[in-house]
């Protein structure tokens, strides 16, 4: 078990290095120099611009720039924003909480809704339940979240004013937990819809397959009750592909958060990302990308660990 964890951790290191290379060089290749953004004034003094270029290290060869950036990265310094001049890490730290809040909430919501629905569908295929949840999953998987967001805002904020359409708290200034939950409902729902759709389908398919397995027949033949057969024997064996699906959901959740946050003016990483892209604030873009990549890496690591808990064959394999 310990060996397995260690191996997973070691694999994460080259992945992380690969991420830094990609992030850095893609930003470097993007058209438009940061200098142009800093000096919007076309009459800027050439000498001042040259000084600035030297100060930011932009006159150095690209590989020197890369190693300098990575070196700083390992010291926890993501650089400074061209736009605000603030340290990128501080800007990211301020925004990461709200993003984690809605992504994790929607992950939990998706799992809580989709897995029971998927299991029910698989247990009684072609029943009313099955048609209901299959319909739900098709609609969910086929609805882009910007569209779902607009529909929700229109119906639940504009027509019937039950949920607020933007922000994390009321403008009154009192930050209560209930207020936060109230504001979270719509963005979390919007972020969950597609995930629920695909997760129901994955769970249904996977449980349906496991229910055909011989050991299910064995469990019935030894006199286990159906509920035990379904949850103890079938579900646990069916979970591996479902967990894989959840793992692959993580990047989509983060990507979806960019759109959703923008839509609901949610003060998270996604809206900071959009703002930074519009102002070509490269250090911030790179910083956010690295942080998101690390989050996905950690997410996958957790998924790997869950695998090994679920399936002893992974734990013991050499």
């Amino acid at each position, binding site marked *: 078990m310990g060996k397995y964890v260690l191996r997973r951790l070691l694999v994460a290191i080259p992945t992380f290095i690969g991420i830094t290379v990609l992030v850095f060089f893609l930003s470097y290749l993007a058209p438009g120099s940061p200098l142009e953004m800093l000096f919007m004034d076309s009459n800027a003094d050439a000498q001042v611009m040259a000084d600035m270029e030297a100060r930011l290290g932009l006159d150095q060869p690209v590989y020197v720039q890369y190693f300098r950036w990575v070196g700083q990265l390992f010291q926890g310094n993501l650089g400074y924003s061209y736009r605000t001049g603030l340290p990128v890490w501080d800007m990211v730290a301020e925004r990461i909480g709200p993003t984690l809040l809605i992504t994790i909430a929607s992950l939990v919501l998706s799992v809580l809704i989709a897995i029971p629905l998927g299991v029910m569908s698989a247990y009684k*295929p*072609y029943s009313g339940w099955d048609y209901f949840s299959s319909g739900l999953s098709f609609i969910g998987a086929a609805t882009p979240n910007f569209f779902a967001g607009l529909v929700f805002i229109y119906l639940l904020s504009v027509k019937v004013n039950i949920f607020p359409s933007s922000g994390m708290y009321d403008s009154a200034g009192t930050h209560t937990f209930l207020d936060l939950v109230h504001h979270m409902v719509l963005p979390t729902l919007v972020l969950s819809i597609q995930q629920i759709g695909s997760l129901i389908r994955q769970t249904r398919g996977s449980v349906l397959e496991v229910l055909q*397995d*011989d*050991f299910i*027949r*064995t*469990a*019935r*033949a*030894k*006199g*286990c*009750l*159906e509920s*035990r057969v379904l949850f*103890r*024997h079938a579900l*646990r*064996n069916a979970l591996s592909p479902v967990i894989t699906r959840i793992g692959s959901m993580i990047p989509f959740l983060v990507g979806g958060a960019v759109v959703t946050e923008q839509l609901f003016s949610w003060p998270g990483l996604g809206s900071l990302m959009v703002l930074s892209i519009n102002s070509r604030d490269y250090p911030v873009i790179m910083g956010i990308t690295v942080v998101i990549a690390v989050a996905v890496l950690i997410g996958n690591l957790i998924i790997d660990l869950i695998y090994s808990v*679920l*399936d*002893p*064959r992974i734990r*013991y394999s050499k």
Partner: protein
Amino acid sequence: MSHLLEISNLSVSFLVRKKWLQAVTGVSFYVDQGETLGIVGESGCGKSVTSMSMLHLLPKTTSRVDSGTVIFDGTDISGYSDKEMSRIRGRRISMIFQDSMTSLNPVMTNGAQLVEAIKCHDRNISKKEAEEKAISYLAKVGIPSPEKRFREYPHQLSGGMRQRVMIAMALIQSPSILIADEPTTALDVTIQAQILELMQELKATSNVSIMLITHDMGVVAEMADRVMVMYAGNVMEVAPTKEIFANPMHPYSQGLLASIPRPDKTVGKLSSIEGTVPTLQNMPVGCRFSTRCSKCTSKCIESCPPLFRKDGHDVRCWLYADGEAVDGTSC
């Protein structure tokens, strides 16, 4: 005399492309206390379906029992609900299956699966007692270092060992009947012999009745007291084992026995029964074996024979029409 298990006129259908097709038709037989009944026949002849339907283990959406009663220990269990059946399954009638590789749950330890077989029927037993019982049964079926194996997972055992775990699990509630559905088919020959020997031993000590489903005539000869030959969903012949090997009456039984390779005789070509089993869609109107039978007459093609009782055999063949008919025509 009443039998421990008596099945009468059992018919089972499956839903195939929106049509119900009968896979087992009018099957009747009995099993007595402490007896081993061998059920033989080619793949797809309805051996497994018969035993699975007795325990209500067939999928409910794609199969149905058209007729038949299952009298077990004086009670008709054919109409039992799932909950009532779960008290019979594993406790009074147990089952072991062909593929020991896939018949155990890969994510549960061997021990947990054995303990579950105890606790499903006996909720009051303490965890410690259940574990001790499970370990003692692992030892009983000849598994070395049972405490260690108890904590291991099925994938850490060999095929033979897994089948032993299955047998331990099936016998842990001291059932009256053990249904063994091709228990040795997936094992190599030496392990096969060990498992059969183990079953003989356990039978001798516990007086359990065994329904042994197989297509291996050698296994039947070694294990069974009586043999029931099935073909295309019908019972073709029932007789004591010695009788059927010495004097097979049904042309199908004769064909089966003739097909056993003889290492002591050099023959140019191995004997076989010509043709293949008719599909469910094209069952003959008359005798179901008529399409492959060398002794087929026009009567065989036109109408289906009942089981005739003659010289201690029950035979479904017009050749023995001088015997007493023991059931109606049921093809």
